[in-house]
């Protein structure tokens, strides 16, 4: 087992009727995801522009986390450079628009380019594991960002300023919002499909034990490449939408389209919600980005400290994410019918045991 070996999972439900429970959980997850997105879809009705742009950002981060979930959550590979696909998508739209091309073409080119890049990059780096995979992907993202800056792609220092779409800005912003929302829904459906497909089973097997997966006939390498490409596509589309929505792009530095901060957010959000779950990244994305934006406003210049402390608490006390916590607190052990209170206390005990098992 390599360094990315997954957690032992004593949390694990020893629940009865596994298949039925599993499919019920699948359905509930999907429904919950759709319901959440449907609720968010009502935001423009408030007529509050700040809320609209806040939720545009939140949904964008949800898409990024959902995209990361394919490679990081399902396949278990710590991709710290996924922002590179975001950057490629954004740069493609920026360059297309700067050269007078239509927006959809930029989106298309960006998505294709990111998919191709993920494929070609995956060939060498998906042979690496654990921390080495993480640093290699991170290195690629940093290198590409610096390259765009140094080669002044799109403008001096790689900085781009785009002309806004020829629409009333309220309408344009609403359209971008629904664009991100549609993308998030698509990614949600894609994740739900994945969770039930051979592809998904293969990725989970790879995450849980790559050597055993290979020995059982899973072409692990190609499935990993597939997961990497899959995670690149929504990420690049989000980057493309972001470019035309935000209009001012820089390649590096905070908020730059190749800023590793995006990668960190993807990991953090997926992690909090539940990596390798259908709706986890969505929930994690909403909670984290909402907190980030609102603590910025509420706590001024100490929001960094607060966020740091929050991350520390979450990683120690919620190391499996919210979705798994919900699962643990609601299932009853194999074949036994228990009251809800009993189930809950049993679940708490399992969670405690799991937290304890992470330490020494």
């Amino acid at each position, binding site marked *: 087992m390599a360094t990315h070996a997954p957690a032992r999972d004593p949390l694990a439900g020893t629940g009865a009727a596994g298949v039925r429970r599993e499919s019920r959980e699948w359905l509930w997850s999907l429904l919950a995801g759709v319901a959440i997105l449907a609720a968010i879809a009502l935001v423009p009705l408030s007529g*509050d*522009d*700040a*809320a609209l*742009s*806040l939720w545009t*950002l939140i949904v964008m981060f949800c898409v990024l986390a959902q995209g990361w979930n394919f490679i990081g959550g399902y396949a278990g590979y710590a991709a710290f450079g996924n922002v590179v696909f975001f950057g490629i998508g954004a740069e493609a739209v920026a360059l297309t628009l700067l050269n007078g091309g239509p927006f959809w073409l930029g989106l298309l080119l960006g998505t294709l380019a990111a998919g191709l890049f993920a494929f070609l990059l995956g060939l060498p780096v998906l042979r690496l594991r654990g921390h080495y995979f993480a640093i290699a992907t991170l290195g690629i993202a940093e290198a590409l960002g*610096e390259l765009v*800056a*140094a080669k*002044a792609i799109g*403008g*001096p*220092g*790689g*900085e781009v*300023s785009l002309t*806004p779409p020829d629409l009333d*800005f309220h309408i344009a912003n609403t359209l971008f919002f629904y664009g991100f929302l549609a993308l998030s829904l698509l990614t949600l459906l894609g994740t739900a499909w994945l969770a039930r497909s051979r592809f998904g089973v293969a990725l989970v097997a790879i995450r849980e034990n790559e050597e055993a997966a290979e020995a059982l006939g899973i072409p692990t390498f190609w499935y990993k490449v597939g997961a990497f490409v899959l995670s690149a596509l929504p990420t690049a589309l989000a980057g493309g939408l972001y470019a035309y929505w*935000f*209009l*001012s792009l*820089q390649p*590096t*530095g*905070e*908020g730059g389209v190749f800023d590793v*901060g995006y990668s960190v957010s993807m990991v953090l959000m997926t992690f909090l919600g539940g990596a390798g779950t259908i709706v986890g990244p969505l929930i994690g994305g909403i909670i984290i980005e909402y*907190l980030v*934006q*609102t*603590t*910025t*406003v*509420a*706590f*001024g*210049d100490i*929001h*960094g400290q607060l966020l740091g*402390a929050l991350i*520390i*608490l979450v990683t*120690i*006390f919620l190391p499996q994410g919210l979705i798994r916590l919900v699962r643990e607190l609601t299932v009853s052990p194999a074949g036994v019918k228990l009251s809800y209170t009993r189930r809950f*206390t049993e679940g*708490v*005990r399992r*969670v*405690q*045991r799991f*937290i*304890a*098992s992470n*330490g*020494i």
Partner: protein
Amino acid sequence: MAAHPGTSSSSFPVTSAPAVLAHATHARAPRGLLRLCVLLPLALASLLAACGGSSGGGGTSSNTLVFGAPVSLTGSLSHEGTDTLNGYKLWAETVNAKGGIKVGNTSYQVQIKSFDDASNPTTSTQLTRQLITQDKVNFLLGPYGTTATLADETIAQQYKIPMVEGNGAAHSIFAKSNPYIFGVLSPASEYAKTMLQAALALPTPPKTVAIISANDSFSVEVANAAKAFADSNNLKVTYFQQYPANATDLTTVLTALKTSNSGGVPDMILGSGHENEAIVTMKQAKQLGINAKLYGFTVGPALPDFITTLGGDSNFVLGSSQWTPQVKYQGQDVFGTAPNFEQMYKAKYNVEPSYQAAESAATGLAFQFAIEKAGSIAPDKVRDALANLDVMTFYGELKFDASGANVTKPMATIQIQSGQVVTVFPSDIANAQLKYPTPAFGSR
């Protein structure tokens, strides 16, 4: 430690590990975790409530004008961002102390509503939108830096709220035909020019110059303007090089620069970038024994910590400055003169004002004069008044061209002499002679 509520005190693994495991699996009651389950949502809820509360709290009372300002208090621009906010706040306090802004018979108190954008332009726009639509600010003061200004000005335009900024000088900011953006600072093309002019005005001016710059758009724009100016003024550019922004090691650049003047060190080294790069340039020039006759940096020398960081090695270094405490303008504003501003700033913040602080204060002055002139707080009327503004302040003349840039006010060249910032150019505001040539490291 805030990170650890009481839940965890019992699990310090001081005993042998199997014992801990047993302890954790059986003996420990779920009380700790239950408490956490209750506490965490509670904490989150109160946090959210706090946010809701604060965003509603900034509303305008009838006699208050609210100025919204997204500034960088954390992250890579926090240093300059803090000076920016200090300038805004000093202006607001001073105005309020002197009776506020007068529109007709009404006096308006000034309130600054500012949020930290963590040096992230995306956050900056989010905050700008929030300031406009939720906090209902009357006017906008600019963020720090070119990228954030570029992003925020679009939003100002969308909501037709005038934004006066003092910390984004790139040409691109004013190239968008955006009628709602005004910059009180001299444009990027002036940054290096003033230092080169100062050098060329010397009795025996330097003949060669090496220009190095960070590769962000503002620094590149400044460097290109410097090269063009040098080329047309018989100053030979022996080395022209970009390096990655925020580089921590510039030895390769300096080693190549050292011999670029047909084997020797060029007379002048001109850096266009950020303060940390300027400091690294000086430190490594010393380590590599590069003794030029003149050093100049667009950003850095005017900031107080440039001197404290470099100590004696900061002496003789030139800097370009939007403003210095020595400028001799007799302003009609609440500060009046530069020395007065300097004194008030030092009294409040206990540190010398940087030009970033002064230009930020000047953005407020621009608004103040425009509002009083317009006799109205209607954004469009104030915008028109801003466009036609021509007023003298402690900071210099505030007058905007059609694009919103301030092309009237000259920049100044400062030099650090014996650990103090003095103004050496242009001569009408200079309070000291430019000392030249710079002695070798170690005897400064």
